[in-house]
């Protein structure tokens, strides 16, 4: 290997390392899992953190049909008007989150774990990326209410 090539390799490596270090300081938008939903119909107004529903977690255990046919979830984020009374009544989330199939509603913070103040939205949705003003906190940890 000639010294000229060596130097060029060294130069590009230095530039690469520096660019990487520089990029670390730039705040990143939210990087949640595809199809995570933030549901904030009533939570913020009631002084709770918004609920976060992870599709990926539930998809490993159940097929779409279970919730979207049997439990009556409409294909719309925030379109189901779910409140705690309905859940305790055994509807929507409460059909499984009742202590029998899954953990029960006493574990408030497991669902109500979103950053306060977020609107109801689909994370990573093509529609939001294209047309709607997508919610992106400027810093993953900095958005407080």
């Amino acid at each position, binding site marked *: 290997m000639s010294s000229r090539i060596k*130097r060029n390799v060294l*130069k590009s490596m*230095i*530039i690469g390392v*520096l*660019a990487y270090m*520089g990029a670390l*300081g*730039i*705040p*990143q*938008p*939210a*990087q*949640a*899992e*595809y*199809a*995570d939903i*933030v549901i904030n119909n009533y939570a913020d107004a009631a002084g709770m*953190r918004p609920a*976060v529903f*992870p*599709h990926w977690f539930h*998809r*490993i*255990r*159940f*097929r*779409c*049909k*279970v919730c979207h*046919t049997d439990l009556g979830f409409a*294909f719309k984020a925030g379109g189901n008007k779910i409140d705690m009374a309905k859940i305790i009544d055994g509807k929507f989330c409460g*059909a499984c989150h009742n202590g029998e199939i899954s953990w029960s509603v006493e574990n408030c*913070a*497991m669902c*109500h*774990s*979103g*950053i*306060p103040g*977020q*609107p109801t939205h689909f*994370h990573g949705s*093509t*529609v*939001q*990326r294209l047309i*709607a*003003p*997508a919610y*992106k*906190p*400027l810093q993953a*940890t*900095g*958005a*407080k*209410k």
Partner: protein
Amino acid sequence: MNYKIKAVSLSLAMLMSVFAWNAQSYADEATGAEQSLLMLAEVSSVNTFNVNLKKPKSRNLPPAEDGIHDPENEATHSLQHPLDAYKGLPTSEYGNYVDWVKALDEGKLRPRWDRSDPNEEPFVLDLDIVRPVKASVPDVVFPHRQHTEWLYCSNCHPAIFVPQKNANQISMSAILLGQKCGVCHGKVSFPIETKTCRKCHSKPKPADWTPPLSEATLKNPWK
């Protein structure tokens, strides 16, 4: 030559640090404004859709670092890390970076078809629907099998798709706006990106295919 490299790297380092410091202070200002006034929502530009221009910096972050879960909430830290759940599943280049359909076909997943009965089997319909496309992209093949593995007939029929030939007007603009296929695709099932076009547009045009003439050309044909 050696000095030159040193000079270049030094100036780059300074530039980078200044840039990083600037970005940090902008972010601080923004969060300050948030606390007092409104949540800042960044309007996405057209370019964010173009997969060639912007790629996510990191994949499958743990809930506490993903930007929508509150790290100050104690229970956030007890939520499962997606990568722990995805171990051993076939990967893909988009969405959750997991090929869910392949995982189900290979038996790596055993999701329930019924809420409480783990032995209930889905009603699978193996029927491919070919939809000719007016434009020059390959025609669409809709496979019922992969869809009925997950969903029930009434999820799509008749509210989203009329179960009748030539009864459904489907266009990419409708899909991108969240109608028709876009009710799920682009939100939950695989996203609509340049990488995924070929998943639906998968049947090559017949050899004798010619592009259809537009209405304007039909009205005023070339002499």
